[in-house]
């Protein structure tokens, strides 16, 4: 089992409750932001020494819940301070962006890192479409065409042009080319049926970081595997990434309280604008088809789920190191995945607690679950 240390880089410099979208940046204190960026970077870099296999960056816009508007900038900074840990972009929100630019920047990261990039090519969560004024109904089609174009950018031996539905480029030859052959591994999100199928069709890794229940996650994994077989390939466990929030402490009550407080802060402070925009996109556009919309647990519903609910559902890692070991084993027994994405910085959980939790995870959890 491999483990990705993932960080959202939330802005915790204000406790103001905001429901508007976008969240007004007048509450952002740049000096505080600077302090947070550097603390978070130190934390993410420490993942290598602590034995994590990947470190994960992500892209979010116009909200305090994530300060990584461009994950590649953070990824580049981490590359300079690490040697072996994989740099997972989880990842570029492809339909919002220029695919040539994604191909170029990812190639830069791959070359700079000596071939350590995991290339997340994601559709994005609903509210991001408001941020970048992209039609949510085009998200799947844009993602599909862009991925094909990005792979061509990485692999074509001669300059070429592209005449597509959404993208038209008459002459392309990106500099640099990536180190990894044929190209960096692609990771796609698969939190609903259409996305799971899409990931299989593109021979990509499947990432599920926000599925509501274990049975639902298993359902999506099975669909991914079935679709892959129909397209002539067989995913291994290392092609499947499951995301978990994780709170590890010396005792269960501390771990649980920490996580509860962090989730409460997220719901109250960080997630207001997200919920507003998410509702708009979900109910006023065709970002989801009817099936996916019916099964999606939006941010409003997620805010009402308690840590106890998550523990009962087996959908969280929370407790002492021994408890977390058992939770990971149980999840693996059900899902058969090969990569677990660990998100410890939930809301405003103190950074010292995060560092201590990482230490406990490194010393007492990793050795027990590596072999899964």
């Amino acid at each position, binding site marked *: 089992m491999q483990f990705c240390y993932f960080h959202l880089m939330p802005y915790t410099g204000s406790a103001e409750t905001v429901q508007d979208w976008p969240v007004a940046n007048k509450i952002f204190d740049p000096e505080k932001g600077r302090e947070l960026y550097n603390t978070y970077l130190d934390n993410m870099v420490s993942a290598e020494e602590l034995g994590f296999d990947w470190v994960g960056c992500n892209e979010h816009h116009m909200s305090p819940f994530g300060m990584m508007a461009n994950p590649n900038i953070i990824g580049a900074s981490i590359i300079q301070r690490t040697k072996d840990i994989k740099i997972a972009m989880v990842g570029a929100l492809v339909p919002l962006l220029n695919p040539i630019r994604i191909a170029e920047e990812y190639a830069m990261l791959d070359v700079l890192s000596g071939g350590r990039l995991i290339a997340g090519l994601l559709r994005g969560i609903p509210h991001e479409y408001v941020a970048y004024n992209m039609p949510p109904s085009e998200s799947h089609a844009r993602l599909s065409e862009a991925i094909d174009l990005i792979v061509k950018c990485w692999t074509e031996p001669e300059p070429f*042009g592209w005449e597509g539905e959404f993208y038209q480029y008459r002459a392309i030859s990106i500099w640099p080319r990536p180190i990894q052959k044929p190209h960096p591994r692609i990771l796609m999100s698969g939190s609903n049926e259409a996305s799971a199928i899409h990931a299989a069709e593109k021979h990509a890794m499947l990432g599920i970081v926000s599925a509501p229940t274990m049975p639902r996650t298993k359902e999506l994994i099975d669909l991914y595997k079935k679709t892959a077989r129909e397209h002539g390939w067989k995913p291994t466990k290392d092609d499947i990434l499951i995301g978990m929030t994780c709170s590890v402490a010396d005792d269960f009550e501390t771990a649980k309280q920490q996580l509860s407080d962090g989730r409460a802060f997220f719901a109250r402070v960080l997630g207001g604008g997200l919920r507003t925009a998410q509702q708009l996109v979900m109910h006023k556009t065709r970002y989801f088809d009817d099936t996916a919309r019916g099964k999606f647990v939006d941010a409003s519903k997620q805010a009402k789920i308690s840590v106890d609910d998550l523990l009962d559902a087996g959908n969280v890692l929370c407790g002492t190191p021994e408890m977390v070991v058992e939770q990971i084993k149980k999840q693996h027994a059900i899902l058969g995945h090969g990569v677990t994405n660990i998100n410890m910085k939930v809301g405003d959980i103190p950074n010292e607690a995060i560092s201590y939790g990482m230490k406990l995870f490194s010393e007492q959890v990793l050795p027990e679950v590596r072999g899964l």
Partner: protein
Amino acid sequence: MAFEQKTAVLPAGEVTYHVAGDGAPLLYLHGGGGVVMTKPLTRLAESRRVYIPVTPGFEGTSALDGVANVQDLAGLWAAFVDTVMDEDKTDVMGFSFGGLVAAWMAAKHPNKVDQLVLAAPGGFTPKGATKLSDDPKKRLAQMYRHPENLPDGKAPADRMARSREAMARYRPNFDRDEDLVARLGDIEALTLVLLGTEDGVTPAEVGHLLRREMQHVHFVYVYDAAHALEIDQPDRVGLILTDFLERGEGFLVNWGSEPAEAAPATR
């Protein structure tokens, strides 16, 4: 713009051709399935004079003695440019089998060819790289990504069978034309190579080869198109054809929203 069918007498014999439109000339060499009046062609005929000669032996016409291979065909159409089109030189576009003939025209009769478009050209596929399936359903998928765009939604089986017989005269096998490959570097015409991203007949290696070996060439993928790219993506193909034929190398540059006529003459 409706095409008119005519006949003409060339030194090698009588040929049938279709013609429509007014303006700068374009010679279009059809594929191995015969003449298909695609949307890009009818659109081009709104601003150009488009000639589509019928390869002797196709569409019920007679084969001509002395025109027995693709190089002979190239010579036949060079004479067509002189005699019928009454032009010193013309833009030439060839699809599939027609692309092979067009490339030979550019190689052997360079003074007749202005700009060249090779759409999914035949004759360059490495041996064994692809093979048209014997299964009709699989063959349809190799040829068409959007067969619903075909008239009546299907390729007429009898037309394809007759065409295969006719093409066997000029291409008894589908090996790569090594003589032409050896001469690719001699072709001086500014060339646009188009390939569908889902082409099940002409592999991407053909685009790579032409891009590598030709002097003045641009290679463009047409997304979500199989071999019959004019049928699968008529708007996309029409747009890039018009832009390339109108602006030459200037087609690389996004002209923006102003009318194309306002673009500086780049040819």
